[in-house]
């Protein structure tokens, strides 16, 4: 590919002569990146929230009241030996009640009237980092439930299940929206380049007659495709960042009550989006040039 000052000059001439067409293409790329970026932003924040939540995930195993302390120790050790388990802590009924009292200071009166401790002894089971998914939780819970010494197992199955579903859906939406907008944008860029090619058909024929090769003729169009993709990507990301900034300033206080801190996407995601939008520009250009070469 010969890219020299002439390529840039011919590229800028074409943009000047077809301002409206190029503006529409640029705006299309910006909007596509904005929509896809919004989904990526939502998915990455939801993932972050899930990860933070996962770090605190534990299975609470309530033991039967009438078992001996050696049986309690054996149960703890057996659970500790499961491959997905990181650690198991014993929490006595008394300690459990103490913690509950500390958590419910406003309802202290309820506890004052208690004659006996209603809470059984329990085990807090923490999973290994890479096993904190719903499947592992369910399989571990069902294994623990088999123990004679265990009364009840609790791990917030419904909440975790719903949240995982929301995250999977948003990820799927980001991927499918990305694929749809990828194709739409490739098509629009290909069309723009095709129109530019046909408006300069005579010029291209003259160049061929004076000995210009294909690479020289095509170079300004590749620059255009690259610029549409790259600058459109930057434009879309900048607008997304601006919208994110306005949004986060206005609602971060409301969300802080839920201990949620929303963040902009990672630098890696920014580069991936920028790379994809540049690829879209290049691909659109490649397709139309390939068709043009076939027809000319």
């Amino acid at each position: 590919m010969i890219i020299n000052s002439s390529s840039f000059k011919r590229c800028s001439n074409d943009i000047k002569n077809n301002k409206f067409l190029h503006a529409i293409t640029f705006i299309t790329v910006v909007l596509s990146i904005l929509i896809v970026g919004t989904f990526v932003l939502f998915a990455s924040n939801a993932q972050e929230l899930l990860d933070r939540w996962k770090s605190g995930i534990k299975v609470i195993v309530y033991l039967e009241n009438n078992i001996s302390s050696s049986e309690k120790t054996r149960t703890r050790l057996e659970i500790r030996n499961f491959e997905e388990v990181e650690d198991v802590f014993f929490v006595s009924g008394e300690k459990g009640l103490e913690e509950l009292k500390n958590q419910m200071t406003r309802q202290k009166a309820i506890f004052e009237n208690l004659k006996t401790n209603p809470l059984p002894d329990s085990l807090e089971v923490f999973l290994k980092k890479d096993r904190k998914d719903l499947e592992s939780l369910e399989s571990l819970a069902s294994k623990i439930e088999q123990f004679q010494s265990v009364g009840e197992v609790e791990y917030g199955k419904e909440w975790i299940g719903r949240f995982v579903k929301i995250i999977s859906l948003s990820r799927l939406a980001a991927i499918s929206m990305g694929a749809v907008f990828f194709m739409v944008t490739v098509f629009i860029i290909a069309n723009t380049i095709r129109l530019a090619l046909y408006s300069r058909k005579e010029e291209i024929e003259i160049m061929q007659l004076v000995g210009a090769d294909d690479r020289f003729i095509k170079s300004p169009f590749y620059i255009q495709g690259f610029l549409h993709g790259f600058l459109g990507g930057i434009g879309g990301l900048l607008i997304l960042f601006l919208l994110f900034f306005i949004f986060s300033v206005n609602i971060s206080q409301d969300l802080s009550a839920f201990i949620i801190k929303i963040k902009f996407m990672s630098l890696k995601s920014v580069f991936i989006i920028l790379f994809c939008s540049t690829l879209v520009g290049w691909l659109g250009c490649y397709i139309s040039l390939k068709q043009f070469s076939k027809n000319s």
Partner: protein
Amino acid sequence: MTILGSQPIIRMFNVYKRYDKMSALSDISIDINSGELIFITGPSGAGKTTLLKLFYKAETVTAGQLLIGGLNLSRVRPSALYKLRRKFGIIFQDFKLIPSMTVFENVAIVLEASGEKQRIIERKVSKVLRTVGIEDKKNLYPPSLSGGEQQRAAVARAVIGEPEIIIADEPTGSLDPESARIIIELLREFNERGTTLIIATHSQELIKQNRGRVIRLKKGQIVEALT
């Protein structure tokens, strides 16, 4: 009819060109030597422009063989066509200047396409524009030039790449006598330096004023060849 020369740069053997069932050229066999001045003449529709187009493969032969510098044109792939075209400097009847480019850019494009350095391009283009007498017009666009000035720009573009062969299709057809004289003088200068010059023209006066080989066409056939 066959005309033989000692060092042929162009060789045509029984060349035919047909468009559907209409015959444009029939049984053309010519040898054109390196450095020769050739006039191709004949009435409108005789096949002059078609013959020129076959040389730089803007048209392909229907039958027969055409060799340029020993290269059989039927074997030149479209992707390698630019190499053949760089052997030629072509002056078109309708100039074929790019209207969105300045005179300078129109001429420079030949060197830019072959990857020449910008510094060298500027020097060479300025020199050739001075030679053809339109250096002061280098920043103007073709539509703002007169016919004579556009033709000079076309000559500048044809010679800038120092081609082996210059092809000129009716180079004086739309010019006043003075502009025509200047253009022909310029082309003759390049021919005298060893460039093969092929001119297609109606003008018998132009042929009489210049010593060159004349090939006369009629209805797509060579009817006369004078040395």
